[in-house]
């Protein structure tokens, strides 16, 4: 009787683990936690995730390693879990190379790779708690953020 109860508990444990795996997998094959949410979209805007191009919609989750791209008429705005706000204009490409944030102590790090186009940013808790922890890279320069509002334009490699 006792051993049946143990076996049942084990089975329940396996099922729970499977359910958690399915939850994780339902997040469109992304690794790690959600780091931002899409707040605004106009025109052609896509999230590139592990090679797949997903049309961006308001409310979509964004993950580390995603790349944000906009077309000729596109624009997109995101808000990160540390309250950093980022928005790009048309013909833009920005890769979210690195992002981690601990909301209990505000420690974290962020590195975005700005490949072309325009971006406007308002820095959040990562830049406030750790000067230098928020960075934006372009092919010609590295930007270290102390705060708060700034814009970047990168000419595409033509």
């Amino acid at each position, binding site marked *: 009787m006792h051993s049946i109860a143990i076996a049942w508990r084990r089975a329940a444990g396996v099922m729970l683990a499977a359910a958690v795996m399915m939850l994780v997998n339902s997040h469109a094959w992304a690794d790690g936690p959600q780091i931002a*949410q*899409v*707040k*605004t979209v*106009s025109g052609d805007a896509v999230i590139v995730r592990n090679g797949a191009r997903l049309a961006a919609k*308001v*409310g979509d989750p964004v993950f580390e390693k995603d790349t944000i791209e906009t077309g000729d008429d596109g*624009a*997109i*705005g*995101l*808000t990160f879990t540390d*309250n950093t*706000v980022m*928005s*790009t*204009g*048309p013909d*833009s490409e920005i890769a979210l190379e690195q992002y981690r944030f601990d*909301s209990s102590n505000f420690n974290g790090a962020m590195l975005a790779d700005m490949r072309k186009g*325009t*971006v*406007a940013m*308002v*820095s*959040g808790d990562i830049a406030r708690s750790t000067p230098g922890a928020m960075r934006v890279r*372009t*092919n*010609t*320069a*590295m*930007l*270290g*953020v*102390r*705060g*708060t*509002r*700034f*814009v*970047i*334009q*990168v*000419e595409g490699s033509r």
Partner: protein
Amino acid sequence: MRRLLLLAVLPLITALGACSSRQALFVVLPNPGGGSGAVTVSDNGGQSVVVDQPYGAAEVRSGQVAAAISSQDQVQKVFGSALAAQPILPTHFRLYFESDSEVLTPASAQEYKKVFDDIKRRPVYQVEVIGHTDTFASKDYNQQLSLKRADAIKERLVHDGLDPKSIAVAGRGELDLAVPTPNGVHEPRNRRVEITVR
């Protein structure tokens, strides 16, 4: 003779470099309350420029960074679309509670409406409610009380029509005091929830 020629040509090359096309532009914008933050722009050759004034800028040409000055007009022209796509900025609220209770103080009961309205104006939202207590009573008791406070606010928001999946709660007990006190102290300003809306 060859060296002389080189000396004559060198300033010309430098001048051409200055006229070469811009590879990247960085502009610091004013804060709404006045002043601005600051950024450091470093090129791949190790040169760096600190930009810490409203509409102060840095440009990269021929791989080299240099300080520059931008303007409201240039920012609007180059970054108008990006700025127009900017989400509503995150906001922060603090609501206070009666002693040993998850009932809001009268002033915070009024303030609650502002929280609700702020969430409602956003097309999509993510809300974090973190509960706190003062140092009166035990740590364990306060941990539970802080979570009850956060849960009470979430329940109210959901009751008023907001999406429960978009509201996260946590309790921090007496770990993060707004006003530092010794243990065992009644302090109204520590009996609170911190709400982030984004």
